[in-house]
């Protein structure tokens, strides 16, 4: 295929222009500098930073992670440097030429909104991703992403706090992901990221205790990929705003399946741990697949899954 025109890999994710559809997922790529020795960030489409809160957070006591079949659980507890230190110290250290999406987290819509404000207008921040998997303090621990009313409040509050492209990252621990996606669209979100981790538990049989100090954790990795594909497909049929697909993506083939199911872009998460070059390999592999299959524009693949009758 060397003689043919280069593949057009550019995609638009709710107003964020990406040179290719492969981002790295929040919490799995640090603040972007840690991959320096392993990965040239200019090979990927963009990078989503670890979720930021208003104040720095220490996170949970260990053990914070445990391996499970084809996956892992984590309960990091949203350890982060806080939004101000991110803007002051982390952003300037990032190499040029990679769009940065900042992930935002809080305990109330107001604190989410404040973090959004502080990130708006900051050079290098190309868009915001609202992590709606935070337990809402006043509602007894139910996550924003698990209740349509709470979610609507959250999207409304963050939408009015910023004019940056606004993605809402949804929790998969719901009865109807389509309903949640529609709430986001109705309240003016520019796009949807899904999925976050599946709530799960692992036991340490030797101690007869939970394997994680936090008891519950989030399941990620290849194990959850079929659930993520299902949710992306369901959400993409429910709303018109673009979707960023996440969940167990480790290869170009995995990513392509998400595109077919309706994702405009994808994020690589846990696979970064097992192979720090994973995201770049996924991006390159998409190009190779398109070349081999006569696809000239990656964006043309989005939502083309052919469903029988």
């Amino acid at each position, binding site marked *: 295929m060397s003689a043919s025109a280069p593949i057009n890999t550019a995609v638009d994710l709710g107003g964020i222009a990406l040179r290719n559809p492969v981002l790295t997922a929040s919490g799995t790529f640090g603040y972007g500098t840690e991959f320096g020795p392993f990965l040239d960030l200019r090979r990927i489409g963009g990078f989503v930073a670890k979720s930021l809160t208003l104040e720095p957070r*220490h996170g949970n006591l*260990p*053990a914070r*992670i445990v391996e499970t079949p*084809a996956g892992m659980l984590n309960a990091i507890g949203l350890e982060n440097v806080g939004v101000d230190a991110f803007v002051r110290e982390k952003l300037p250290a990032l190499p040029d030429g990679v769009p940065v999406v900042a992930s935002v987290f809080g305990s109330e819509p107001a604190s989410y909104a404040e973090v959004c404000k502080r990130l708006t207008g900051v050079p290098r921040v190309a868009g915001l991703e609202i992590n709606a998997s935070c337990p809402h303090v006043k509602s007894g621990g139910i996550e924003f992403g698990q209740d349509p009313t709470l979610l609507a409040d959250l999207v409304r509050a963050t939408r009015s706090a910023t004019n940056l492209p606004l993605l809402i990252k949804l929790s998969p621990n719901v009865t109807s992901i389509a309903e949640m996606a529609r709430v986001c669209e109705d309240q003016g979100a520019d796009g949807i990221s899904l999925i976050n981790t599946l709530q799960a538990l692992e036991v340490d049989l030797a101690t007869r205790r939970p394997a994680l100090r936090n008891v519950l954790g989030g399941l990620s990795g290849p194990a959850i990929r079929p659930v993520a594909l299902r949710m992306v497909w369901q959400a993409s049929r429910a709303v018109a705003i673009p979707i960023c697909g996440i969940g167990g993506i*480790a290869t170009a083939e995995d990513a392509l399946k998400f595109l077919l199911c309706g994702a405009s872009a994808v994020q690589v998460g846990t696979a970064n*741990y*097992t192979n*720090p070059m994973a995201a770049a390999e996924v991006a390159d592999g998409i190009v190779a697949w398109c070349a081999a299959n006569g696809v000239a524009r990656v964006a043309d693949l989005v939502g083309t899954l052919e469903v029988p009758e």
Partner: protein
Amino acid sequence: MDAEVAAHADAGGPNRRLRLRVADWPGFAPGQFAMLSAGARGSAQRDDPLLPRPMAVYREHAVPGGSEVEILYKVHGRGTALLADARPGDRVRLLGPLGRPFPDPPAGGRAILVGGGTGIASLYELAARAQGEVLVLLGARSADDLMGRDDFAALGVSLDVASEDGSAGRRGLVTDLLAEALEEGGAPSVYACGPTPMMRAAAELASRASAATWVSLENPMACGFGVCLGCAAPLAGGGFGLVCRDGPVFDAAAIDWENLA
């Protein structure tokens, strides 16, 4: 990041000695580790077990066209059992060397190295490179379990062994040996690696003897290079240090032992 198995041998009881041929190995400092895939990579992808395993770099050997990295490990759970199946010519994924090494033992001073269980592997190169007087104390459940004894002996350093069942060296804990060694005085530097309770006890003994103490922690890891925040160890001053990036070697006084899992 792909490495080829050059040799793989029994090293007594559940222990195995693995030599990996690595193309661009930059060298390492004592206490650094690598992330090794849980088992050899087959001809196709396998998603389980998923995560790599942290392993101390035991030694390195220059060979024509590259280096061989030696790992001394214990068959413990699934990942190491599968690693033990790897045969010469098989390939494993290796990321490293990673982490902060032990500080060099003070040139003229006395260094006590205390190793228990798999922690012993982190100490060999420290003993090998130390300039001053070195005492190595090794502990294990039994003679069978004990790692690396002959290698340390071959270094010519002073060596003392304890085992819980008395089948190797003294019956008892390696920290019993440390307590005695500290009584000899001389405010040595202590370097400890092993199970958390053992390191904690060693740190307490050493602190009572006003000895500077370095520990190498063995927390579970997902990434090994500072991005998952999974390996966090609580610090005495509050907050956390990342074992993979800020460690694995820490000043024992900096650790919040109470809350370390």
